[in-house]
């Protein structure tokens, strides 16, 4: 189609971002809301016009800049879904910041809109350096959001965030340079089919891994996340959990797996091992948290471990499960951070013990919080279940041990989330100020209800989300097929028993022949 919709998806928030810098508080808010809403409509148009079963890369735009570096955009089903997730969460973030942000509103809205540009750019970029720019620059607005509008310890948090990220990005850039030199192209789709020498793959894979593992974040390079979440304003947490944590997973599925299949197979156990440790360790840590945001941040690490394990299961279920987990986690943890934000705005504390009995004075809030809690622990019927079930089913084909350890997450997850819910929403109203908090406002309701609907939709009829990605995942699986690791559950068919285990040669049985 002729309409450069991807460019418009980048332009609308870009124009909005620049405008916001010069606008007053109220107009900045409205501008941001309008810009993100327009982008949401564009995103939905993108989804509606995406041809399932059509070309692998659609809406392609390409213009040579110089020397092989080009402004190239285009999406497949995987990128489509992540773009839709991003544009869906953005207006909600603007609404979440409506009253909470009172200083430098224009700059704040501008930072968010810039971030939207960069996030969509990451998923739409088809040139590896274009991707790099978006990928790394996308974090700059986030530093600012944490560093300027964050909590008391924001400097330490953004410093940690910076330090971790720096480590990975330098290595990744070097690897990219080497690859471009070797393959002679900066075009991502071409690189995805290029067969690098297996020994070189190992180094390239490790360089990319350094960057993606931090973004994921995987254990043990996850410690920036709890601090970043705790210090970030609510909307910052939503975008951080909702979209920025998906950059690592997107990197794995776009670069590491298709470009270095042999190396990926070589490191399966590194990934599975770290994922297993992450699920158990971070779930147990979540259990003992006193700070709501920290608890949800640690739970994010555990959920992202399911993503990495699913991706490195090398089969359709694992890959699709990982993708659904990314989408689901984006919605659910985003919503959980919003839920924290709702009561933080009222009481200005994230201490769990300062709340209690909120079901009494905030029944609607309690219902939403319960719903997202259940989605987080993977109750069937919500998106969390489809995600968890498919990923783990995929991992089972590789290793029953890994599946056993990863599946303990469903027990531990239920433990820490229900324990959190109990302390916040159940029990008696211990604190008068918490007991006096009013229920959801219309604005908050408008933020939470669409996410709840999406979570339910993805849980009951995930086909809408799986269908666009199906062909891409199948292509990826085919590329990985030769390198796929052997599972430990090899089936050996034996001589079947003649009878059921409880068969009794009864006289009636003999008579019954007539």
């Amino acid at each position, binding site marked *: 189609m002729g309409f450069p919709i991807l460019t418009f998806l980048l332009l609308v928030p870009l124009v909005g971002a620049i405008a916001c810098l010069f606008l007053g508080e109220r107009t900045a808010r409205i501008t941001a809301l309008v810009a993100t809403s327009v982008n949401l409509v564009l995103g939905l148009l993108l989804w509606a016009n995406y041809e399932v079963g059509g070309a692998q890369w659609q809406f392609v735009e390409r213009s040579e800049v110089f020397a092989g*570096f080009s402004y190239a955009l285009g999406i497949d089903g995987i990128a489509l879904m992540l773009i839709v997730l991003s544009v869906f969460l953005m207006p909600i973030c603007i609404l979440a910041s409506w009253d909470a942000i009172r200083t430098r509103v224009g700059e704040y809205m501008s930072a968010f809109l810039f971030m939207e540009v960069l996030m969509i750019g990451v998923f739409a970029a088809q040139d590896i350096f274009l991707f790099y720019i978006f990928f790394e620059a996308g974090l700059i607005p986030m530093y600012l959001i944490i560093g300027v509008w964050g909590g008391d310890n924001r400097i330490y948090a953004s410093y940690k965030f910076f330090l971790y990220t720096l480590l990975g990005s330098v290595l990744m850039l070097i690897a990219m340079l080497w690859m471009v030199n070797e393959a002679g192209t900066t075009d991502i789709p071409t690189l995805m089919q290029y067969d690098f020498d297996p020994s070189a793959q190992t180094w390239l894979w490790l360089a990319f891994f350094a960057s993606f593992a931090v973004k994921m974040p995987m254990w*043990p390079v996850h410690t920036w996340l709890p601090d970043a979440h705790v210090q970030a304003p609510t909307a910052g947490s939503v975008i951080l959990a909702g979209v920025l944590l998906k950059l690592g997973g997107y990197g794995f599925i776009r670069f590491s797996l298709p470009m270095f299949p042999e190396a990926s197979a070589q490191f399966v156990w590194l990934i599975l091992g770290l994922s297993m440790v992450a699920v158990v360790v971070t779930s147990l840590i979540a259990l003992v948290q006193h700070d709501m945001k920290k608890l949800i941040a640690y739970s994010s690490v555990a959920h992202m471990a399911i993503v990495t394990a699913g991706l490195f299961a090398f*089969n359709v279920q694992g890959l699709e499960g990982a993708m659904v987990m990314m989408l689901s986690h984006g919605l659910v943890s985003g919503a959980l951070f919003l839920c924290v934000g709702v009561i933080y705005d009222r009481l200005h504390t994230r201490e769990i013990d300062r709340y209690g009995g909120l079901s009494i004075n905030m029944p609607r809030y309690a219902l939403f919080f319960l719903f997202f809690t259940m989605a987080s622990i993977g109750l069937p019927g919500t998106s969390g279940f489809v995600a968890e079930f498919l990923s783990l089913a995929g991992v089972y084909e590789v290793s029953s041990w890994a599946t056993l350890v990863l599946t303990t997450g469903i027990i531990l997850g239920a433990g820490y989330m229900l324990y959190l819910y109990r302390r916040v929403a159940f029990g008696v109203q211990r604190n008068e100020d918490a007991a006096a908090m009013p229920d959801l406002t219309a604005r908050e309701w408008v933020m939470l209800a669409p996410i709840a609907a999406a979570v339910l939709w993805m849980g009951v009829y995930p086909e809408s989300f799986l269908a666009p990605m199906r062909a891409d995942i199948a292509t990826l699986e085919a590329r990985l097929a030769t390198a796929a690791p052997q599972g430990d559950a090899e*089936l050996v*068919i034996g001589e079947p*028993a003649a009878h059921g*285990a409880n068969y009794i040669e009864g006289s009636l*049985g003999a008579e019954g022949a007539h």
Partner: protein
Amino acid sequence: MSSILIIVFLPLLAAIIAGFGNRALGNTVAKSITTGALFVSCVLSWPIFLGFLGGTATAEVVQVLTWVRSGTLTFDWALRVDTLTAVMLVVITTVSALVHLYSWGYMDEDPDQPRFFAYLSLFTFAMLMLVTADNLVQMFFGWEGVGLASYLLIGFWFRKPSANAAAIKAFVVNRVGDLGFMLGIFGTYLVFNTVSIPAILEAAPAMSGATIGFLGYRMATMDVLCILLFIGAMGKSAQLGLHTWLPDAMEGPTPVSALIHAATMVTAGVFMVCRLSPMFETAPVALAVVTFIGAATCLFAATVGTTQWDIKRVIAYSTCSQLGYMFFAAGVGAYGVAMFHLFTHAFFKALLFLGAGSVIHAMHHEQDMRYYGALRKEIPLTFWAMLAGTLAITGVGIYWLHAGFAGFHSKDAILEAAWGRGTELGRFAFWMGTIAALLTSFYSWRLMFLTFWGKPRWIESEHIQHAVHAGHDEPEDHNPARQEDSGHDVTHAVPPPEYRGGTGGYHPHESPVSMLVPLGVLTLGAIFAGFVFTDAFVDSETFWAGSIYYNEGLIHELHEVPLLVKLAASIVMLLGLTAAWFAYIKDTSIPEKAADQLGPIYHFFYNKWYFDELYRYVFLKPAFWFGRVFWKAIDMGTIDRFGPNGAAWLVSKGSVAAKRFQTGYLYSYALVMLLGLVAAITWVVF
């Protein structure tokens, strides 16, 4: 037969309306909608069941919606109706409709009634999804859905800390079982390349000799799969090891206990084993595990039941014990018999719970039987209903007439099947079951005698004193403000020194009609359900029509067991009755003396074999301890210390001013990126 769509989805619709409408709808509207929906479902369910009973109906599957398509792993929302489902349909919808009706009276003064009724209907929907599942994943959906409803209903009085703790415990312990269930589904998919139940059952016999790698070992495929699935069943059906949540679940309102924790949800495990019976029949080791766990549970729970004072806890342990019977019946291959006991048990156990609720209602929320006594004359209708329930659970009947109360038919058939199976494990199960039957009779009559006979001991109850001192004797047990203080002293291992007691001026009232009608209907069930349906459930292969594995040889053996085996249940029933009569009517000092004499054993039983204490020290405390260590010592003490903080320290040591670093890092970052890009472009251009 698209009526199944209405049967299943009407309760969901009602739950949504009542739940979201809540206060806006008002109590009466919300209650009418949910109760009405359930009665419609119930009325539509019986013709389906009778159709299968009469042999006119055939099994069918109604497709609803695509669910997941992921490679070859595909499953849909679909409703399967066959004989096994039809049995569950009538059990679920009938008990649920009656419990809805009963709750009109029982929950009358609760401020949160729409929420309660919405949860009840939601539960019913999830349970119906479970029993109509055509694939393992939808069964899991129902499985977790009933878990959610159970969690919400146990914690319904959410101001009470004990109710919250019990709700979380129920959910988390069930999740331990679900871990097994999920692994079982994954393994089944790996082996059969499908999760469709009919397809699996068809392919299972061919796999009976196969082996598979699991956790590094090579094992018999079907045994591994069935044991994993059975772990799920153990969680849901509160079998030994994963039973600890069920007694605590009695924190929920009594109608909930009757519906969820007696008649329906806890029997889901039994249903699962029966549904997958052709699969289990290919797994001899798994069946041995089922038999052993079932037999062990039925005895374990019965021993604990003899010592408890809380009327609901006695019945809860009784439920746990009866579920054990069902499992070992399935384990020895008598699936029809297991389903038969499930069917009769649903009626008489719901009756006992609702009867207990009626007693609790009359006694101003007092649940401790030490403060009951002499209620026979005060609440006669409740008494007669409870008596019918007790006669049913203890299996009263006359062998030569083939006539008795519901439990007589089903429990006897189980014991006969265990003996008739002819294996050592079968004999073991028989003896366990027989001893448990003795204990069942003892604790059931103990409950009756303590509650309805003797002299009133009401005055010592705090609840009764509160009622009397408050100047009224109308029960107002659900006033949330009073929920905190309903925990009572259970540290007394023996009853008060003497039953001096007295009424304290309190006058118990018989329950309202809305509560008595369900009691009446269930009483009919407790009396006739066994007698009427024995032939179909136990002896008729055509009734089951292939929906379970029908073991003709075993059924034949079941009828050929020695007379003494057939009479065993009746003999021990009389022994238990006699013992209870001596201890609680004739000479009421016996229990105390016996408790002193049997000190350690008594305490072992009274403290539920110390399972809770064991789990607290083995799982709960270590989990929190490790959580703190991982957080403080590893994350903060090691990773942060040597990672980012260490880097900062190095930087500051390296004579770069820390302040500059803190404020300038953004620019340095952008600079690094820019330099990198310049390098990249240079590389490509030249």
